[in-house]
């Protein structure tokens, strides 16, 4: 286990390094932030001074090595626009995004697995068919449009839920969370439902397919022959068996949702990382773009590692080999 972990961490580190070079080169190769940042009426001398201050006069490789050196110290550059460390800007907004994605994922799991089980057990009755049709429908729904419709229905026509912002927040360990206040929770409802639809459809279909494949297997027949109750067969035998692909997808979806939060956050004016990246893209705030991507890649790798470790708990047959 220990060797597996060290191996994975070294691997992840190499991937992170490769990604940082790729992202850095790509973001820095095209687009000139000087045009955006410097007042066009500034004198030539002032221009040169600003360029030097931002370190833009050095070659790409020099800039990259300076960036790497700072990255090891935990600094990912200063935002050109906000004039604050990029990593601080992102970490400030990370809790908002995590709050949104985790609640969306929870909604998807809480509704997705039971619906998938219902559809999987009797695939031919009307309820199951409508669940499956609904899941294809959810798959196809464009996230941004659903967001607009949710605002239209629940915020404009009937004033049930607020449509923008996070509402009241409570500070815990220096981070602000809104799910602990009633007002914050009300603000969370629409965005998280919006973000939850896609993973919900995915989990329904996955659970359905898993149950379809598992039902004819011998161990289920055996459990039935033993006279176990239907409830026990479903919860202890079936679900345990199909949980592995579901956990994988939930893990992958977590990363996908953090990316898709960009859309939801811009529609609901949710002050998370996604809004920051869209702002930074329009302002060509390179350090923030690079830092955002690296933070995202880091989160992906962390989630994948956790999923791999979870496997061995869910299925004792999968031993994490120390090779």
């Amino acid at each position, binding site marked *: 286990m220990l060797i597996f972990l060290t191996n994975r961490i070294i691997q992840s580190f190499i*991937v992170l390094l490769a990604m940082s070079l790729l*992202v850095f080169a*790509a*973001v820095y*190769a*095209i*687009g000139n932030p000087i045009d955006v940042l410097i007042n066009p009426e500034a004198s030539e001398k002032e221009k040169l001074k600003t360029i030097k201050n931002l370190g833009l006069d050095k070659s790409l490789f020099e800039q990259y090595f300076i960036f790497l050196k700072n990255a090891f110290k935990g600094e990912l550059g200063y935002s050109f626009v906000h004039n604050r460390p990029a990593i601080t800007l992102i970490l400030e907004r990370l809790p908002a995004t995590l709050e949104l994605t985790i609640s969306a994922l929870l909604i998807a799991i809480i509704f997705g697995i039971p619906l998938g089980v219902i559809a999987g057990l009797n695939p031919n009755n009307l309820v199951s068919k409508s669940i499956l*049709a609904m899941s*294809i*429908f959810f*798959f*196809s*729904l*464009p*996230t*941004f*449009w659903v967001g*607009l*419709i949710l*605002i*239209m229905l629940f915020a*404009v*026509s009937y004033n049930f839920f607020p449509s923008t912002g996070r509402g009241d927040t409570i500070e815990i360990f220096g981070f602000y969370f809104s799910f602990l206040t009633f007002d914050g929770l009300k603000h969370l409802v629409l965005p998280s439902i919006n973000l939850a639809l896609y993973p919900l459809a995915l989990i329904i279909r996955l659970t359905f397919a898993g149950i379809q494949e598992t039902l004819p297997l011998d161990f289920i027949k055996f459990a039935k022959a033993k006279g176990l109750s239907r409830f026990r067969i479903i919860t202890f035998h079936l679900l345990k068996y199909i949980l592995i692909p579901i956990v994988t997808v939930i893990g992958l979806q977590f*990363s*996908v949702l953090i*990316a*898709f939060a*960009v*859309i939801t956050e*811009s*529609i609901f004016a949710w002050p998370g990382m996604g809004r920051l*990246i*869209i702002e930074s*893209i*329009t302002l060509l705030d390179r350090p923030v*773009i690079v830092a955002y*991507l690296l933070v*995202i*890649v880091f989160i*992906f790798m962390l989630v*994948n590692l956790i999923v791999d470790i979870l496997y061995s708990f869910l299925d004792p047959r999968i031993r994490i080999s120390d090779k």
Partner: protein
Amino acid sequence: MNKNNFNIINFLKIYSEDKLALFFLINLIIILGLVIFGPLITLQNPYDLSQLNILDSLLPPLSQAYENNYFLLGTDDQGRDLLSAIIYGLRISLYVGSLSVIISLIVGIILGVVSAYFGGFVDNFIMRVADMVLAMPSFLIALVLLSILGRGLENVVFALVMSQWATFARVIRSSALSEKEKDYFYSARCLCLPQSRIIFGHLLPNCLPPIIVLSTINLAFAITLEASLSFLGVGLPITEPSIGLIISNGYEYIIVGKYWMSLYPGLFLLITVVSINIFSDRLRILLNPRLNI
């Protein structure tokens, strides 16, 4: 599905056993018709300024125009007939979507077949790169590329291809690998046929079913992705108003209750994507020999 008894009527017969799928296939055909013959049937060319009348702006659905026409779905802030704008927008969306799928398909076929056929180092290299692409959500890849390249039709197509080719390469490689072990492939090699003929004449046609299904799924996905990117303002430029841009145009009017400018374009987008998805789902069931009894 055996090749000998495969024809389009037989196929339609089997296909229409699922009534829901048939309904959405007809839907899809209607949408394609609307898109292809769009300019002939729409009320106006929504981007020809001489045909617009500012007095008609922001009219709700089913209202009468200044000059005796009826606007079925209302008008936008420029006095544009929304239905015409939607049909023109769908044209652009479908064009961008299918173009990106076709290019990803070509790239995927080349890389996938090369990977499976040659194996070894080439295979390893291509597949590791594909893994890296697949590890990132395609939305993020497209977003980052567009943030670097800027708006524009070619850029959007490029970004969509970059985020999709890996799926194609992976699927084509795996089906080519399993085909490679079959007898017909060995006989073709024993006959000393040229490599290109083995690949294009024998290997590829047998890999077709999964490729067709994947292409339709990805078409739906590409259309949604493009709409999302355009909505965020990083996709197509204002000169190429795709359905995503039309929806984003209506965004600010939702708050004041002028719902139709976002609702109807979105519904059209949704119907298109649902139809394509249900079509591909049905195809997947029909083309999967494991499920075909």
